[in-house]
């Protein structure tokens, strides 16, 4: 009996399954984000210290969580490519990189826009902000490395190795607020002892986090589908060229 992973290893089967799942994930993410926005603006009270600017948290934190979660998915996919040679592992990793870069960019920009009224500055070179900026550059590096190598098999392997090396950034980012001086607040949701954030703010934050995660899932499925189609186009174009060359040779003989 095949495991789910083995069944999904077939790109054709993945295309069939994702085609039926994708509309539901899109609808669920739209509904959850819509509800989250309603909670964020019309139900959640202003923070007792930061006032209305704390509402930036409802988009900043989901983007920041996704910036790390997407990288973990890329690293896991890279492991799947290098160790198990899973046919969809490289498709998954390649599809997730631009999405992860976008969410990391959004985490940086929204954090900066939150920092100005809260800290009095858009940017400081402290451990948290700098390590997330390095993560963003790592995403750009993964894209640049892949596009700079013509041999696609080699590009996949080298990108996977870089992605696995880069996973060291995740614990550095996570614990960057615990060592060294930083303006960034320590973890207030995922921490030992439970969240320190008030329930009135925690609920919209979690709803938005679920909505953004569903949105990423929908984007990732779509990006994987696009990448599979892209690979099919490329292999057919190669087959067409080879067929034309063979016909030319046959005509010459």
């Amino acid at each position, binding site marked *: 009996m095949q495991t789910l992973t083995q069944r999904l290893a077939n790109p054709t089967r993945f295309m069939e399954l994702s085609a039926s799942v994708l509309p539901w994930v899109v609808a669920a993410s739209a509904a959850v984000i819509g509800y989250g926005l309603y909670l964020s603006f019309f139900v959640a009270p202003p923070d007792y210290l930061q006032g209305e600017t704390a*509402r930036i948290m409802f988009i900043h934190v989901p983007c920041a969580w996704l910036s790390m979660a997407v990288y973990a998915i890329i690293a896991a996919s890279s492991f799947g490519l290098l160790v198990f040679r899973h046919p969809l592992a490289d498709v998954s990793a390649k599809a997730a990189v631009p999405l992860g870069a*976008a969410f990391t960019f959004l985490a940086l920009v929204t954090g900066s826009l939150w920092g100005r009224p809260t800290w009095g500055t858009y940017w400081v070179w402290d451990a948290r902000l700098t390590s997330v900026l390095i993560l963003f550059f790592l995403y750009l590096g993964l894209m640049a490395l892949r596009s700079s190598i013509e041999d696609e098999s080699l590009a996949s392997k080298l990108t996977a190795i870089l992605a696995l090396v880069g996973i060291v950034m995740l614990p550095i980012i996570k614990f960057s607020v615990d060592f060294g001086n930083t303006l960034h607040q320590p973890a207030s949701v995922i921490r030992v002892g439970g969240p320190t954030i008030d329930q009135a703010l925690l609920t919209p934050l979690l709803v938005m986090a679920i909505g953004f995660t569903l949105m990423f899932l929908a984007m990732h499925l*779509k990006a994987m589908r*696009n990448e599979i189609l892209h690979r099919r186009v490329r292999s057919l174009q190669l087959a067409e060229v080879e067929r034309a060359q063979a016909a030319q040779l046959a005509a010459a003989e």
Partner: protein
Amino acid sequence: MDFGIDLGPHASFIISAYAVVTVVVAGLITWLILDGREQERRLADLAARGVKRRSATRT
């Protein structure tokens, strides 16, 4: 922009943050949809020229 609520003296920062997220997410969605359509169009062009996947030829 008026959300029907008073966002206080730092409203421009809040609105800017949500606007940036909206623009980037909309850009990603547009790119994904257009890229998918482009690949499907290319596959259809190849199929019209008689270039098909082996599995497609069988069915």
